[in-house]
């Protein structure tokens, strides 16, 4: 009898642990891979904390097209130069920026949020559906250096789409085509 109880205990512990892990993996409680927390250095240390936080510049002032396009594009340098023609022009970083602007060579930023090509995420629809930028991107306005706060895994996307109040489609072709 002791043997059987022992066996059941061992099986129970193993089974329970496994179930917990499966549940955690399936429900994004544990994220393996997907670069959550990625926080690369940028060629010019642009501070969102300063621009969006302190100066309260609206996200969509720089990230134009977000309301109409799939992409929330990284601003062209002329957007930066709108202000930096006159603001803080003596900073070496701004000089670097101005050089890039005038030479037309642009700046190679490191991409923080990356979806593979077979995922067609549409910024405009999500903005239109009333989602705030922070829902996915986190409190960027408090970040000195932008970090990927969401896993951006499919399970993470689907989790939100499944909420009935979001009325979001769950077709495969919603994102993959």
């Amino acid at each position, binding site marked *: 009898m002791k*043997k059987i109880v022992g*066996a059941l205990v061992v099986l129970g512990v193993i089974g329970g642990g496994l179930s917990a892990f499966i549940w955690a993996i399936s429900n994004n409680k544990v994220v393996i891979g997907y670069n959550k927390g990625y926080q690369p250095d940028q060629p010019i240390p642009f501070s969102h904390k300063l621009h969006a936080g302190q100066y309260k510049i609206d996200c969509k002032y720089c990230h134009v097209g977000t309301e109409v396009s799939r992409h929330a594009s990284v601003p062209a340098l002329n957007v930066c130069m709108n202000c930096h023609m006159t603001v803080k022009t003596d900073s070496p970083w701004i000089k670097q920026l101005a050089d890039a602007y005038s030479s037309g060579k642009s700046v190679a930023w490191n991409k923080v949020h990356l979806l593979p090509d077979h995922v067609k995420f549409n910024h405009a629809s999500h903005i239109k559906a009333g989602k705030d930028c922070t829902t996915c991107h986190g409190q960027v306005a408090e970040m000195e250096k932008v970090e990927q706060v969401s896993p951006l895994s499919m399970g993470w996307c*689907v989790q939100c789409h499944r909420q009935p109040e979001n009325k979001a489609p*769950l077709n*495969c072709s919603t994102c993959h085509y």
Partner: protein
Amino acid sequence: MDIIEKVIQRLRSPGKKGIAGIWLDEHKLVHAAREARKSGLTKFEAISPFPLHDIDAAMGIPMSFIPWVTFIMGLTGFGFGTWFTWWASSQDWALIIGGKPMWSLPAFVPVMFECTILFAALSSVGALIWLCGLPKIDPPVIDPDLTSHKFALFVPEDDTGFNAANIEKMFKDMGAVEVKRTEF
């Protein structure tokens, strides 16, 4: 690390001291076993290179209860297969596939069936291994030919009514070709 050592300890289970008698004929062994049981011994073991049909009765070994494990685990497998196909296909993520309903039972029968078999089979083997105390690392062997053509009875020292002299005598009477004090 502690656990691993404990497991190894268990697998290494040191042999018990006792007396072994060796026969060359399985019928004599069965006879000896019957006699040994009559003499009140209960924990003795019969060792043979192949299964002997009469030994169970001779030693009073009851029918194995593994079929119950098989049956229960088979039912569990069936239940799991049924539940899982239902849950995955119609609850967790209902996809419209081939115009069929989300819970299209006939299509799930093969999976349910295979789960039944797999659970039943693996749990039976698991039970076998557990009940036989396998695997064992370097268990004591009375005689290497016991897996070839010899048959043995072993009576451990802690058996009820263990009396070395009596047992040795009994084994010899029963026609044992060899009787020795050994570990098993």
